[in-house]
């Protein structure tokens, strides 16, 4: 059965013609190149290099950025791209999120003219892969306390420390690394071959298996002076990247949920138990109706947030709400879909269990579900509750 994207309220009719064409292009890529190969990629634990090449050829990397060879699409189009990619696999969407929002974006917004000219065109084309090093083994939800530090040695910087859970790390030519220089968080561009830098892969993941996750290790890593991002100081740097990536995730989660719904619907119509299709039983219909309800709400949330991103009328709390809600419902939908598939739901013949396992990571990265609750809680009450030091 060809994939049918649930769009109960015809939300996609609100997209521009250009956005719909971009959607069809990415959907075609996912149908043709991703779905037939994703289980193999997961089993091998690799991100297929051909996907990098095709993403570059399609011209979707760094979608909403303009100039320097970047696509210059709307934020809404960027969202649609994330949704279609994540319908294939969250690992694929992670690759694009990290490349565009976490590695290209900080160079585009905070980099020097030379840095932009040097790195952005080859990142937009997919020739160079980027990664984003913020999380450390002991500092996840509170990156502000990070220990990785940079020292000004006069004619170069010296980096020391370690990052963990870094998507694309081992396969990247470039890392945007956040480290403290005289106690202030700054962004640095580290290249693969810089002395004292290594990026060993983390193995054994049960989630995002088709995405490469790595440690970044800096042992007296020496980088030239012109690799500091001049345009930003403090947590605002990494957080502005995260805002864009989280926005993309709010769309991406809809794609994963749509894939699970589609599979559950088809399965329930064809699976006969007690002489009738299980889709004919009220309990199953209740689950499908609930999925449709949550997907429709999530679509509207993502679309409206896209409009706000494009109009520049958004606040970070809007993004927190959409990321948190949409990943949450996608994960619940994956679980319900698994239930509807019965034992078949655990097989890699169906996309369900893969999406479910992937979404566990998505729920945690880019601000855990509860960290987003705290962000919204602070917005409502004016009282931060991240730490006890009030």
């Amino acid at each position: 059965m060809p994939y049918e994207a649930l769009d109960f309220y015809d939300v996609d009719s609100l997209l521009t013609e250009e956005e719909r064409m971009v959607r069809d292009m990415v959907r075609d890529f996912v149908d043709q190149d991703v779905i037939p190969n994703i289980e193999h990629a997961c089993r091998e634990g690799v991100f297929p290099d051909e996907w990098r090449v095709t993403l570059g050829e399609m011209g979707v990397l760094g979608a909403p950025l303009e100039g320097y060879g970047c696509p210059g699409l709307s934020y809404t189009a960027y969202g649609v791209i994330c949704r279609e990619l994540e319908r294939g696999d969250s690992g694929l969407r992670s690759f694009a999120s990290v490349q565009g929002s976490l590695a290209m974006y900080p160079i585009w917004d905070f980099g020097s003219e030379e840095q932009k000219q040097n790195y952005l065109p080859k990142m937009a084309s997919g020739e160079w892969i980027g990664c984003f090093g913020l999380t450390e083994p002991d500092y996840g939800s509170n990156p502000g306390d990070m220990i990785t530090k940079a020292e000004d040695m006069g004619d170069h910087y010296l980096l020391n420390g370690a990052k963990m859970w870094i998507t694309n790390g081992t396969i990247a030519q470039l890392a945007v690394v956040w480290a403290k220089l005289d106690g202030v968080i700054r962004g640095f561009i580290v290249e693969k071959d810089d002395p004292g830098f290594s990026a060993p892969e983390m193995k054994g993941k049960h989630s995002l298996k088709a995405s490469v996750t790595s440690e970044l290790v800096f042992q007296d890593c020496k980088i030239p002076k012109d690799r500091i991002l001049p345009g930003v100081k403090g947590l605002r740097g990494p957080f502005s990247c995260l805002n864009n990536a989280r926005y993309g995730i709010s769309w991406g989660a809809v794609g994963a949920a749509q894939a699970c719904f589609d599979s559950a619907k088809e399965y329930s119509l064809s699976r006969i138990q007690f002489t009738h299709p299980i889709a004919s039983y009220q309990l199953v219909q209740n689950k499908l109706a609930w999925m449709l309800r949550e997907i429709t709400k999530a679509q509207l949330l993502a679309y409206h947030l896209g409009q706000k991103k494009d109009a520049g009328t958004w606040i970070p709390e809007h993004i927190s709400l959409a990321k948190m809600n949409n990943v949450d419902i996608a994960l619940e939908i994956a679980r319900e879909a698994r239930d509807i598939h019965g034992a078949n739901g655990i097989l890699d013949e169906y996309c369900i269990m893969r999406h479910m396992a992937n979404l566990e990571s998505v729920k945690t990265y880019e601000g855990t579900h509860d960290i987003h609750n705290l962000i919204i809680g602070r917005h409502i009450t004016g009282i931060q509750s991240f730490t006890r030091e009030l």
Partner: protein
Amino acid sequence: MTIAVLLKQVPDTTAKITVSNGRVDENAVSKWSFSPYDEYALEAALQLKESMGGELVAITAGPARCEKLLRDAAAVGADNLVHISAENINDFDSTQMQKLLAAAVEKSGSSVVFCGKQAADTNSGSTGPGVAELIGASCITMVSEVISDSGGYLATRPSSSGHEKVAVSAPCVFAFDKGVVEMRRPNVRGIMMAKKKPIETWSIEELGLDLGTSGISIDSHSPPAEKPPGQKFEGADSVSTVVGKLRDEANVI
């Protein structure tokens, strides 16, 4: 040199077709797409253009919804877009359609024409030969590949020995079967350029045509017959019955 590609928008092969009051209900078609053989024709035409230069004009006839098809063609590389606007395309017979397309081909100044061997909805298979006849061009059917060759073209098509390469010079029409290369995927740059490309809309009057009245009319459409329900056999006793049915009814053993 100008290469024309004739493209027809048809219900997507995955779209559900409903027939009401003896007519296909077009409003119920959820997705419209390129007719699949036209995609091969378009890809082959793009490759020919890339190998020898020139311009590629995409021509379609039909109601306003067909503009999407032209935008999609532009996104993969069509230079000029022509929409022969005709709301009532289903009222035309094949000969009238050929007259329309032939006039547009002539107006576009094209000497080489690519099209599909048949459209996925009507399947009449007469457009290529019919247009060729009207514009006085050679016609090669069932083509899978075209390359430029010493001032002319070399087209690959099936023959009794497998394949044959047919040499032809312009003016000529290539009616495509499944080609050797699938239609390329667009990219963002192509899509953004497609948005800016003007679509020339030509009316039947502007083409200076008198289509006359058709000698034929379609009486009614009907959906394909429902598949008969499957038969179920259980137990070792039914082996000989099943083997018999597989041999005599299904003809698979």
